[in-house]
């Protein structure tokens, strides 16, 4: 096992291993989870590396407990993460909602495999994209990032921690079996070069601390257990002090703030990568491992004279509408290839409102869409 805990070195790492390296670089010092294919390597590397940097790894009795412990650790001031795949992600939904409501920073990795149910445990899929947005009950906003290379597994795990700390919110990273298990060369940046964001902590005297008070960013500073800012944390809708409330004039501002803090900061949160999109006549919108096939397909298509381009989604939720809309107006057609029956294409259609033609290419047999398939489809548009 290569030692992905040391920075500034060039290593051959699986996506899963690079996530661990990214998490450690971002300051993650706690991991609680439950093994599941194809996310297990994350647990295993964490169990090996975390204790060496003074962190803690624990394997809990199930995924519910895993996320519970992660929330607890974060409340006690330690950056924390868990990793799972579809079945475990389904089980985490209740506690995920808790983390949203109680505004507890944490990172949850879902390495997607074929579903539904036990599905195709060892095969690649992208079937949990809408679940990541809507899986827990009740209205909530959420940040979901998607990774497509070992490099991104490192970088975006750092980013996920940073966003989660900055916005006091759980951040979900959707990986998939291909990205998770592909080994690629990666040069880990020295620690000093990694931008690490820490949650804002209260600076006022404890008596003045109002734990859920609104701020311009919508994110109140966060006391941590033991630091003298004693306050109440609950999954009930609460007032600015954290106490349960049933008053509409306290409920509405709270729920709106939760929503606003994510959505008003979209310019920072929403990220896409463009590749030859500027002059494209046909655009592929893809993410995760499929974006890799798509990139090759764009090259192949161009070499056949077809002006294709790619937008790779990095942020899946909040859906980067404002970054996509301008493109929709300019292209002849959009192709949305996915390893599901059409989950992101649904969103593209929703924002499209007649701007262009939206075409899907869906594959659910457990294998990655090939560049060839894409080129063929592009040729027919």
């Amino acid at each position, binding site marked *: 096992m290569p*030692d992905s*805990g*040391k920075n500034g070195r060039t290593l051959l790492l699986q996506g899963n291993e690079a996530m661990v390296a990214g998490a450690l670089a971002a300051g993650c*010092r*706690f991991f*609680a989870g439950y093994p599941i294919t194809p996310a297990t390597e994350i647990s295993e590397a964490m169990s*090996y*590396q*975390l*204790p*060496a940097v*003074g962190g*803690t790894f*624990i394997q*809990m*009795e*199930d995924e*519910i*407990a*895993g996320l*519970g*412990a*992660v*929330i*607890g*650790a*974060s*409340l*006690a*001031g*330690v950056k*924390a993460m868990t990793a799972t795949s579809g079945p475990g992600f389904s089980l985490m939904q*209740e*506690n995920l909602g*808790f983390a949203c409501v109680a505004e507890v920073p944490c990172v949850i990795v879902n390495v997607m495999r074929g579903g539904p149910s036990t599905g195709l445990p060892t095969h690649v899929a992208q079937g949990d994209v809408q679940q990541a947005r809507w899986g827990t009950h009740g209205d909530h906003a959420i940040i979901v990032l998607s990774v497509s290379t070992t490099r991104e597994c490192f970088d975006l795990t750092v980013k996920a921690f940073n966003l989660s700390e900055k916005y006091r919110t759980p951040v979900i990273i959707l990986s998939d079996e291909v990205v998770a298990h592909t080994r690629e060369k990666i040069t880990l940046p020295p620690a000093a070069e990694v931008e690490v964001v820490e949650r804002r902590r209260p600076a006022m005297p404890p008596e003045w601390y109002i734990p859920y008070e609104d701020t311009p960013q919508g994110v109140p500073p966060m006391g941590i*257990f*033991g*630091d*003298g800012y*004693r*306050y*109440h*944390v*609950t*999954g*009930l809708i609460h007032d600015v*002090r954290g*106490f*349960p409330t049933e008053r509409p004039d306290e409920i509405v501002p709270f729920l709106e703030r939760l929503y606003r803090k994510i959505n008003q900061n979209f310019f920072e949160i929403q990220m896409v990568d463009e590749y030859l999109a500027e002059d494209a006549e046909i655009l592929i919108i893809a993410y995760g491992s499929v974006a890799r096939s798509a990139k090759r397909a764009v090259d192949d298509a161009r070499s056949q004279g077809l002006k294709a381009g790619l937008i790779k989604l990095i942020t899946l939720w909040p859906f980067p509408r404002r970054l996509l809309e301008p493109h929709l107006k300019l292209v002849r057609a959009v192709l949305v290839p996915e390893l599901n029956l059409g989950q992101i294409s649904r969103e593209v259609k929703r924002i499209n409102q007649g701007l262009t033609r939206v075409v899907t290419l869906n594959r659910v047999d457990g294998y990655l869409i090939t560049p060839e398939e894409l080129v063929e489809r592009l040729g027919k548009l």
Partner: protein
Amino acid sequence: MAEVTKLIHKYLRHEKKFPHVWCPGCGNGIILGALIRAIDRTGFTKDEIVLVSGIGCSGRMSVYVDFNTLHTTHGRALTFATGVKLANPKLQVIVVMGDGDATAIGGNHFIHAARRNLNLTAIIINNSTYGMTGGQYSPTTPYGALAATAPYGHIEHPFAIAELAVTAGAAWVGRGTTYHANLLDKLIEAAILKRGFAVVEVITHCHTLFGRKNVLGGPVEMMQWQKEAAVRLEKAKTMTPEELAGKFTIGVLTDRDLPIYTQEYRKIREAAEAAMIGKGETQ
């Protein structure tokens, strides 16, 4: 004795509306008092205490006291507490759960916490029913009792919570009642001071639901029953099974010295650091 009340007030959250939400005479208030007194005796500061609670009438306890408080999801209190404790072992983490919370939906976390032996204190408020949702049967509802979901009498047999904790591996296990408040203070104090996973099962009354359905009277009658049915463990040893029929035992069921998780984990850290250094040298 007024010091008792003064002491309580030292720990209550006065920005919260009192009286609390519990029904008149509910044992939760008595247990809250015992908990505060016990904590005070341990000498831990408010900042050092994290009070974690589940969902239920009992779960509302965390809102009233001026510690670091955490009201979790139903049944998951021990998992959150595990994270808190591992992240900062200096914190004293006390977990308050209802019988439903700890042994119905949360039963698995309970036995695993006992097995792992983190230095946590678990207080299980056993009122034989789901109070919060209206008196349905819980894993501790006695055979034959009536409940909102057992309109013809309950056919399941209850868990012996404290005994289950012992078998699952808890380092310290005690049982008390709301009637025996002085004993309860001491049990909770000992549980907090115990280094290891310590469980206090508190037998209490939900007269509003369990009591009314089963015509057991109000808080007075139900606490009278506690007084009569509870037998000190030491005394129980001298009694015949016939004499013990219809009774339950109170006191300390087990107290054993087992290596605690965070201590053990320190060894892992040392091994890991050594392994990394080893790697660094050879490569």
